[in-house]
């Protein structure tokens, strides 16, 4: 079955993670849960990017005894999406930390984590 190939499984898992994160962002009232939703969305995108760079039966892009320099191109997966995802993970960590800092600040301001109590910008 085509669908049980590794790249399809990871792609569908990533898509489901993105949808779960989106659900968390739009439906949850608790600020911390919304941050978790963003984090899940982020993780899903990473998984999708990695699965796009996957080459069937490829191994990690590290050259050693098992993967020699000459035949490397036929044996390893694409290193470029992995480098991009490494960048994206770090940025995602920064964004999550920033959101949590805002949550701490908001909680100090209103004493509540419920988004419905923050009406200052609502029209």
């Amino acid at each position, binding site marked *: 079955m085509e669908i049980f190939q590794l790249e399809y499984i990871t792609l569908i898992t990533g898509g489901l993670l993105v949808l779960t994160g989106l659900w968390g962002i739009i439906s949850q009232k608790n600020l911390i849960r919304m941050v978790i939703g963003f984090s899940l969305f982020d993780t899903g995108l990473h998984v999708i990017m990695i699965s796009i760079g996957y080459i069937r039966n490829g191994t990690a892009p590290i050259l050693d005894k098992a993967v020699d320099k000459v035949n490397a191109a036929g044996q390893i997966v694409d290193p*470029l999406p992995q480098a991009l995802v490494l960048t994206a993970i770090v940025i995602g960590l920064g964004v999550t930390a920033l959101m949590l800092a805002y949550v701490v600040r908001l909680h100090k301001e209103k004493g509540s984590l419920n988004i419905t109590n923050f009406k200052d910008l609502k029209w």
Partner: protein
Amino acid sequence: MIKKLIYILVLVGAGIIMAQLFAGFSGSTELSETARYYVESGPEETGAANLVTAVIVTYRGLDTLGEVTILFTVAAIIAFFMKTREQRDKPKRRVSEILTTGARILVPGTMLFGAYIFINGHLSPGGGFQGGAIIASGFALMLLAFPQANLSHKTIRWVESISGFSFVIIGVLGIFMAGGFLDNSILPLGNFGSLFSAGAIPIIYIFIGLKVGAELSNVVGHMHEKQKEI
């Protein structure tokens, strides 16, 4: 009720969009042209056994510089938001014996492991960002076990500034001594696969590791101080 309907509509819409995007996906069986270039000429040009490191530190080194800058900005904003008056109140209950003893054993090992990860970034999975994150997790464990301890923000600032500055200096040296900004061949490429190889990549990664470790520890420290205040 109507809200739930909207949620379901949005989710179904997003699902349909993604299904459309995924429909054209067929797993690739060989590398794209760019990736092929990196794989074939990466080992000769950079000398790094880990090709992801070669891409991150040399080919896309400028992106990494921007990324470190973003982390710095995040740490600065969090420091601004979490600014507190120094006031210490007693912790609500004593830290458990198991945690303090465990931290005494584990923290030095964690720091050493982090350093190992970023020094070997050009040979094995890992690198500056991962090593820095491990070091920051060691600091987080330390602050959990000893809540009265305080990270010295001055030291952290110095470590961070010096490593960031050195990173840029090495990049600029590449313009004068080699092919361009952040070119790693300002140092001899050495023996492929050994610790002292890949030119400037290990040195750049050590600075990145120190910088990321300092920034994340700073974030952890600020959150910890905030917690003490509440």
